[in-house]
C-alpha cells in the first residue's frame, strides 16, 4: 500500500511512541510502582528525565508503560474487531438473507447504544480487568467494520468482475482474495487506524472516570486525573499524559489518511 506524506508522518509518530514505550520500559531503572515519598513532583532532571509524580514515581517509566499499555490494547482490539467485523460483513452478504437479517438485528441493537456506554457497563462488571476492557471495546468496534465491509462486499458481489470470475468457475476463496479483499482492504485499513485511536481514547476516557485500569498500573487517562490537581504546581506532569494521548490519536488519524 502506498502511503501519503501525512500517513508517513502518522506512522513515524506511532513508531516513535512505540520505541519510547519499549525502550523506556526496558532501560528504566525504576519500576512503575516504585515510590519515593521524599522526592515527589520533581521537575525533569538527570535522574528522572521526565520528573516524578505525586508518589515520587518515575514519570518516564510510567509514561513508557502507559503508552505500551495503550498500544497493546489498541492492537489486540483492532485485530479482533477487524477480523470479526470483516468475516461477518462478508458472511452477511454471502450467507443469504437469513444470516444478513440476524446479523442486522444484532448490529442495530449495538448501534443504538453508544459504544462508551457499553464499555462502561462491561468495565463495571470487572473493574480493572484488561481482558474485559478488550472484549468490550472489540464488541463495540467490530460493528463499524461489519457495516463498511458489508456495504462494499454487496457492491463487489454484483460487480462484473466477481460475476465473471464465478462464471469462469473460480471458488469462493478465490473470489474473496481477488475481488472482495482488494476492494475492502483500504477501508479496513482506514477503519483499523481509526479503531486504534478509538481504543486508546476509550481506555483513557474510562481511566478519566476512574473505571479503567487500576493502580499501580500506569494508564494515560488515569494519570491525567491523578495529576490534574497539581496542574499549577507541576504543569509539566499533567501535560505529559495529555500530550501523549493527543499524539497517539493524531498518529493514528494521520495514518488513517482521508476518511473513506
Amino acid at each position, binding site marked *: 500500500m502506498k502511503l501519503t506524506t501525512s500517513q508517513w508522518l502518522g506512522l513515524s509518530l506511532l513508531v516513535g511512541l512505540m520505541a519510547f514505550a519499549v525502550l523506556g520500559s526496558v532501560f528504566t531503572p525504576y519500576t512503575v*510502582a516504585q515510590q519515593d*515519598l521524599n522526592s515527589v513532583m520533581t521537575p525533569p532532571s538527570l535522574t528522572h528525565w521526565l520528573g516524578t509524580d*505525586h*508518589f515520587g514515581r518515575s514519570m518516564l517509566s510510567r509514561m513508557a508503560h502507559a503508552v505500551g499499555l495503550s498500544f497493546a490494547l489498541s492492537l489486540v482490539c483492532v485485530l479482533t474487531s477487524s477480523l470479526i467485523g470483516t468475516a461477518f460483513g462478508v458472511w452477511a452478504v454471502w450467507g443469504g438473507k437469513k444470516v444478513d437479517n440476524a446479523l442486522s438485528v444484532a448490529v442495530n441493537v449495538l448501534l443504538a447504544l453508544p459504544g462508551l456506554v457499553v464499555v462502561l457497563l462491561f468495565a463495571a462488571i470487572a473493574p480493572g480487568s484488561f481482558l474485559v476492557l478488550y472484549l468490550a471495546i472489540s464488541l463495540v468496534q467490530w460493528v463499524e467494520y461489519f457495516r463498511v465491509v458489508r456495504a462494499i462486499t454487496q457492491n463487489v458481489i454484483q460487480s462484473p468482475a466477481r460475476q465473471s470470475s464465478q462464471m469462469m468457475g473460480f471458488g469462493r476463496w478465490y473470489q474473496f482474495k481477488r475481488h472482495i479483499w482488494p476492494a475492502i482492504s483500504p477501508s479496513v485499513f482506514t477503519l483499523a487506524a481509526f479503531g486504534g485511536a478509538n481504543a486508546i481514547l476509550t481506555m483513557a476516557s474510562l481511566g478519566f472516570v476512574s473505571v479503567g485500569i*487500576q*493502580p*499501580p498500573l500506569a494508564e494515560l487517562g488515569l494519570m491525567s486525573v491523578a495529576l490534574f*490537581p497539581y496542574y499549577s*504546581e507541576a504543569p509539566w506532569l499533567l501535560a505529559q499524559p495529555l500530550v501523549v494521548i493527543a499524539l497517539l490519536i493524531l498518529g493514528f488519524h494521520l495514518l488513517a489518511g482521508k476518511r473513506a
Partner: protein
Amino acid sequence: MSVMTSFKKILSGIVALGFVLSMEALAKPTAANTLSISAAFEFTSLDPSKNGYIYSRMQVLETLLDVDANGVLIPAIATQWRVSEDAKTWTFQLRDGVRFHDGSLLDAAAVVNSLEIAQKKHGALRNAPIMTIRALDRHSIAITLSRPYTLLGAVLANYANSILSPAAYGKDGEVLALSGTGPYQLYQFSPPHKLVVEKFDVYWGKLASIPYASYLTGHRSESRVLQARTGQADIVFGLDPASLMSLKHLPRLTLYSNAIPRTIVLKMNSGHRFLNDVRARQALSLAINREGIAKGILRTPGSETAQIMPSSMANWHLEGVTAQTEASAGTPGSVLAALGWSKNAEGILERNGERFELTLITYADRPELTAVATAIQAQWQAVGVSTKVEVTNSSAIPMGHQDGSLEVALMARNYGFIADPLGVMLSDFGSNGGGDWGAMNWNNPDISALLSALERISDPYQYRVIAQRSAQLIYDERPVIPVTSYVQQTSVNKRVQGFRFDPFERSFYLNELEFVKP
C-alpha cells in the same frame, strides 16, 4: 429555497423543548443572596435514614439531642432529659413553641411518630434495646429499654432519627416532604445534585442571616477544588489534599483543616492464613511509612497515627503510643523472617512455596483512599509483600466481611458516626469476630466483654478505664491497622464569616454564617 429557515425552525423548536424540560433548574435565588456549598455526596431520597446527613448538615432536620464539639450531648428539640435509677427509662422534655416547616406545632405525638418510623428503618435506633416509645403528655416523651443502654442519647442525636412533621410521612412511613424543624427549610430539591434551602423565619433558635443556601454535589474532587478557586462555591468541603498548596495562595479563601473522628484504617482478615499471627499484622503495620503518607500524599503532616481514635476522643485515645513504641517490635523483615518467610529471587516473600500475596480492596468515593492504597502497595512491596489493589464500591467491604473473601481493606472509618464512639466500637469489635467495618475473624473474648460492660456504665472514671483497656487491646492485636487520622479540608470564601467546623459532621452551622458587607 427555504432549507435553512425551515431547519432553523425545527431546531428552535427542539431547543424550546429542552428549555422547558429543564425549566425548574433555571428559576433560582440569585448568587448574591445564596450561600453555595459544594461537597462530594449525592442525595437521592428525602428519607432521613438514607440521606439524612445532608439535610441535617444543611440544618433542615434536627434531632432530639445535639452534640457539641467534644461529643457531649446538649439540648436540641428536647430541653432536658433524665435517666431513671435502673437506667432503663429515659424521659425527654420537649421544647415549647417549635414549629415544623409546614407550619404545624411540634408535640410529643410527632416526636414519637418520627422515632417509631425511624425504628423500622435501617439505622442505629433499630438495634437499640428499646421496648416502648410513648408520649407522657403534650411536651414530654419516655423511652423504656430492656436493658441499660448509655448510648441511647447519642443514638437519638443521629441524623437518621430526625424529627419530622407527621404530615411529612406517607402511610408506609415513606417521607414525602422534608418538613423538619431546622433554621432552614427545603426550597428546591433536584436530586441527585442540587438542593436549595431557604431561611425559616419562625425557627425556635438563632435565626439565619443568609436568605438561601444551596448544596451542590461535585463528584470530582478536582471540580470542587476549581469551584473553590473560582469563588463559584462559598464553602467547599472535602478538598483534595493535593490541591491545598495551590489554594493556600489565594487571598480570598480561608482554609480550615480539622481533625475529625474518622481514621484511615486497614481492615485485616485475622483469620487469613498469612495474617492470623499477631506478629504478621504488626510487621505489616511496621512496614507502612505513615509519616510519608501523611506528609507526601495527604499533605497533612502530623496526621499519621497508629491508633484508631484521635486525641479528641480522650477516653479512647492511648497516650504514649508513638512511632518508637511501634519500632520496638523490630523491623518488618525480622518479624516476618521469624514467622518463616524468606525472600525469593523476585524479592517477594515465600513460605512453603507460597508467595506472600494479598488483595487489598478500597473504594473510589474518597479519592485519597486510592492514593493511600497505592502508597501502601509500594511500601509493602518493599518488604516483599505483593499486594493487588482493587478499587471498587464501598459495599464490597461489608460484603467481603460477610462472605469471608476479604483479605485486606483500606477504608475511612467514621468513629463519630454515633456521637459516642462506643456505638461504632460495639459494631466493629463488640460481637464475636468483629463487624462489617471493624475486625474480621478476630476472636478475642475480652474485648466483647469490655465493650458490652461499657453499655451499662455511666460512671465517667470507670468508663475511661475500660475504654482505655479496650483501646490498648485493639492496638496490641492489630485487628485493624490505623494509618492516618482524618483531616477534613475545607475552604471558605472570605465573603462568608462565622464559619465553624463540626467534627462530628452533623451541621454546617449555616444559621451562624453571615455575608460580609461589601
